C-alpha cells in the first residue's frame, strides 16, 4: 500500500480508531493489531512475499532465543551465521542474483570466454533491504550481548513489520524500537499534532517537490543522447531535490504516522544539503542507514583505530557496500565508490573548508556529481552525461506545451523548501517566514500547505524511489 494512495487514506484512520479503542493496558492486543495491519499494508502489494517476512521473523526470533540460552562461543557464532545466511541469502537471491550472473557473463565475455549464466525472472520484494537490515540488527546486537532477546513473538513480529517504516525505513534498531512494543503507549495532543505536521510536510516534499521535479528529470535522463551539458546540470540539480523530497518525505510520513500510534522513530534526514563536508552530509542523509553501516560494518572492520591505510580502505569498502545496497546496478556501485573516495580525500588530503558558504557549496557540487551515477539508467549514460557537461554546455532544454509548467512548479517548491530549511539551519528560525505564536497561525500555515499539495501535487506518479532498494 502506498502512503500516497486513497487506500492508505482509508486504512490509516480505520487502524488508528481500532487501535486506540483497545485499552492502553492491553499492549499485546494493540501489538496484534499492528501486526495484522502491517501484514495487510504489505500484502496489499503482493501477499506472497509475506511468507518471506514471516520466515525472516521466525528465524531471527529463534536465533535470539537460542542466543539467550547458549553460552558456547562456537554455537553462538553458528546461530548468528544462520541469521546472517537466511537474511542476506534472501536479499542476495531476490536483489542481486541476476546482477551477479549478468556481470559474470559480461566479464567472461570480455576475457573471450563463454559463460552461460541463467537469469531468473525474479520480482524484487518491496522493502526487503529495509526489513532485512532491521531484523539483522536485532540478531547482531543480541549476539554481542548489547540487547536482551525478546520472548514476546508478537512484539518482535510487530517490530520487524511495523507498517509506517516497513518498506522504506527509517531502519530502526531493535534497542530503540523493540522496547516500545512492551510498554503502554500514550497518545497525547502533542504527539497527534506533531505527527500531523510531519505527515503534511512529508506529503508536500513527496507530491509537490519530488514528483514535480521528476517530470523534468525523467524527460532528460531517459533521453540522454538528445540533451546537452547545461540541461544535464539542471536535471541533476532537480534530481538532488527529487530524491531528497521523495525519501525524506517518506521518512517524515513514517515518523508522523508512528507518532499517531504512540511510537517514536529516529530522525532520518537533517537538512543534508546544508552540510559543510561530505562527511557531515552522511551524518545528515539517510541517517538510519549510514549509522547501520557504521555500527555493523565499519566499526567491526576496525573503525579508525587501525592503521591509516586500513582505515581508509574500510571507509571505502563501507561506501562501496552502501552503494550496492541501493541497487543491483553498476551505477550504484560507482556512486558508492565516488562517495567513499570523497571521504578518503576529506580524511587524508584536504580538510573541509572553514568558510561555511564555501563548504556548503563545494559539498553540494560533489554530492550532485555523484547523483549523476545514482540516477543514470546505466553506466554508459552516466559517462556520456559527465562528458557532455564538460565538453558541450549547449542550450537548456525547456519542455514545451503542457509540460512547460513542471520545472517551474518544481523550482517554486524547491525554493520554498530551501527557504524553510535555510531559515532553520542558518538563521536558527530567527527570520519570521510565517507567524506561529498563536495556534490558529500554525493551523493556517499547515492548512495552506494541504491546499498547495491538492492544487500542485502530482497524484499519479506512483511509488517512492526508495521502494526499489
Amino acid at each position, binding site marked *: 500500500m502506498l502512503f500516497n494512495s486513497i487506500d492508505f487514506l482509508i486504512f490509516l484512520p480505520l487502524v488508528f480508531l481500532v487501535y*486506540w479503542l483497545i485499552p492502553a493496558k492491553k499492549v499485546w492486543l494493540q501489538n496484534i493489531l499492528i501486526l495484522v495491519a502491517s501484514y495487510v499494508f504489505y500484502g496489499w502489494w503482493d501477499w506472497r512475499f509475506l511468507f518471506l517476512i514471516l520466515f525472516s521473523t521466525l528465524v531471527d526470533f529463534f536465533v535470539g532465543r537460542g542466543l539467550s540460552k547458549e553460552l558456547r562461543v562456537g554455537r553462538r557464532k553458528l546461530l548468528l551465521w544462520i541469521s546472517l545466511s537466511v537474511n542476506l541469502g534472501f536479499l542476495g537471491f531476490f536483489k542481486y542474483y541476476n546482477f551477479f550472473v549478468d556481470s559474470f557473463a559480461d566479464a567472461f565475455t570480455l576475457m573471450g570466454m563463454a559463460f552461460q549464466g541463467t537469469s531468473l525472472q525474479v520480482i524484487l520484494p518491496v522493502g526487503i533491504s529495509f526489513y532485512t537490515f532491521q531484523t539483522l540488527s536485532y540478531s547482531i546486537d543480541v549476539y554481542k550481548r548489547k540487547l536482551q532477546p525478546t520472548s514476546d513473538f508478537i512484539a518482535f513480529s510487530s517490530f520487524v513489520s511495523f507498517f509506517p517504516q516497513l518498506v522504506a525505513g527509517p531502519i530502526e534498531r531493535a534497542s530503540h524500537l523493540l522496547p516500545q512494543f512492551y510498554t503502554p503507549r500514550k497518545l*497525547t*495532543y502533542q504527539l497527534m499534532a506533531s505527527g500531523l505536521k510531519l505527515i503534511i510536510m512529508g506529503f508536500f516534499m513527496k507530491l509537490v517537490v519530488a514528483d514535480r521535479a521528476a517530470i523534468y528529470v525523467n524527460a532528460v535522463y531517459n533521453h540522454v543522447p538528445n540533451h546537452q551539458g547545461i540541461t544535464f546540470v539542471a536535471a541533476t540539480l532537480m534530481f538532488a531535490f527529487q530524491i531528497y523530497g521523495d525519501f525524506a518525505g517518506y521518512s517524515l510520513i513514517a515518523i508522523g504516522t508512528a507518532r499517531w500510534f504512540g511510537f517514536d522513530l529516529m530522525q532520518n534526514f537533517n537538512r543534508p544539503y546544508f552540510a559543510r563536508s561530505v562527511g557531515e552530509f552522511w551524518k545528515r542523509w539517510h541517517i538510519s542507514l549510514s549509522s547501520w553501516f557504521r555500527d555493523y560494518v565499519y566499526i567491526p572492520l576496525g573503525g579508525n583505530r587501525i592503521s591509516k591505510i586500513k582505515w581508509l580502505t574500510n571507509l571505502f569498502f563501507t561506501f562501496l557496500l552502501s552503494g550496492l545496497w541501493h541497487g543491483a546496478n553498476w551505477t550504484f556501485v560507482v556512486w558508492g565508490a565516488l562517495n567513499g573516495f570523497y571521504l578518503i580525500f576529506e580524511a587524508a588530503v584536504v580538510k573541509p573548508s572553514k568558510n561555511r558558504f564555501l563548504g556548503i557549496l563545494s559539498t553540494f557540487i560533489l554530492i550532485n556529481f555523484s547523483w549523476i551515477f545514482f540516477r543514470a539508467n546505466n553506466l554508459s549514460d552516466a559517462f556520456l552525461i559527465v562528458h557532455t557537461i564538460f565538453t558541450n554546455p549547449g542550450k537548456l532544454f525547456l519542455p514545451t*506545451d503542457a509540460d512547460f*509548467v513542471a520545472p517551474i512548479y518544481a523550482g517554486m517548491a524547491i525554493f520554498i523548501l530551501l527557504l524553510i530549511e535555510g531559515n532553520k539551519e542558518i538563521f536558527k528560525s530567527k527570520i519570521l517566514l510565517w507567524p506561529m505564536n498563536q495556534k490558529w497561525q500554525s493551523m*493556517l500555515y499547515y*492548512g495552506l500547505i494541504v491546499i498547495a499539495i491538492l492544487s500542485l501535487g502530482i497524484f499519479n506518479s506512483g511509488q517512492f524511489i526508495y521502494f526499489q532498494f
Partner: protein
Amino acid sequence: MEKSDILKTFKFGLLFTVLVVQLDFSIGLGMKQLYFSQKSGKFARLTTTIYGNSSEILIMGSSRANRHYVSEIFEKVLGQSTYNAGVQGQKLVFQRALQKIVLSRYFPKTIILNLDEEWLEYDQENYERLSDLNPYYWDFRNELEPVFSLGSSFVDLKLLPNTFRYNSTFLHILNYSIFPQRDFLGYRPLYGGVKVLKSKIPKKPSEKALDPILVTLFRDFIESAKREKINLVFVISPELYKKTLNNDSKSMLTMKMIAKDNEIPLFDFRNTEQFLRKKELFFDDIHLNDKGSRMFTEMTLDSLKSLDLNE
C-alpha cells in the same frame, strides 16, 4: 490517553478539518472562476467543446486532429458548422469520455475521429491524462464516473476537493492570458517546416499488447455514434516518413477490423505520396504545418464526398 487530551485533539482536529475545507472551498472557487474565464488555450477550447459548441461536424482526436483539420474549409465546402475539438496529448480513453459528455448535451451530425497508431496499446497515460476533465467532473458525473473508474478507484472521493479539480492549471492559465493561443473554430495552425529530411528506415510494426479496456472503449465509441445516428468517420493523418513496413501494428489492425465490422468509413492517409517526405508540408515528423493541413483538409473532404453527411 487522558480525557482532556482526547477533547483537545478532537477539538483541534475538527477545527483543522473545518479550516482546510473552508480554504479548499474559497481557493477552489477562485480557481474555478479563473479557469472558466479563460478566453484562449487548451482549457478554453475544451470548455467550448463541452458547454458552448453545437456544431454539426465535430472533429475529435489528439494534437494531430487539432492541427490537421481546418474547420473553416469544412464549413465552406460542406456548408455545415464545424468545430475542431482535438486535444493535445489525448488518447482513446479521453476521446470516449469527451464523446459521452458531448452526446449528453447534443448530437452532432458527424464526428470525424482522427486515429493514432498506438491507441489500443496498453499505456497508463491513457488514464492519467483524463485529469484534463477533472474541472468538469461534477457537471457530468454520470458520463465521466464509469470512464474515470477504469483507471482509478474512489473517483468521487478524489474529486471532492475543489482545489484538486484545478490541480496544476494555474500556470497554464497565466500563460494563456499572457500569450493567448489563437484558434480558428478550434483548429490551431502550425507555421514553419522541417528543415532537413532524415534517412529513416521503416521499422517493424509494433506488436505491443492491446489493452482490452481500450478495445471495448473503441467499440463503445462506435456504438454510441450508431445509436444516436451520428455519421462516424475515421481518418488516419499523413506522416512525413514511412514509419513501418507494409503491415500495420496490432493496434491499428484491430481498429481497422472493428471499423470494417461496423461499416465505419476509414481513410488512411499514411504513406500517401502527396505527403511522404514532403518537408515543406510538415512542422515535424507527425504534425502538418498550416500549408499541409489545408491540403490535407481538402483531400479529406474529397474522400468524404463519397459519403452522404447530410443525413
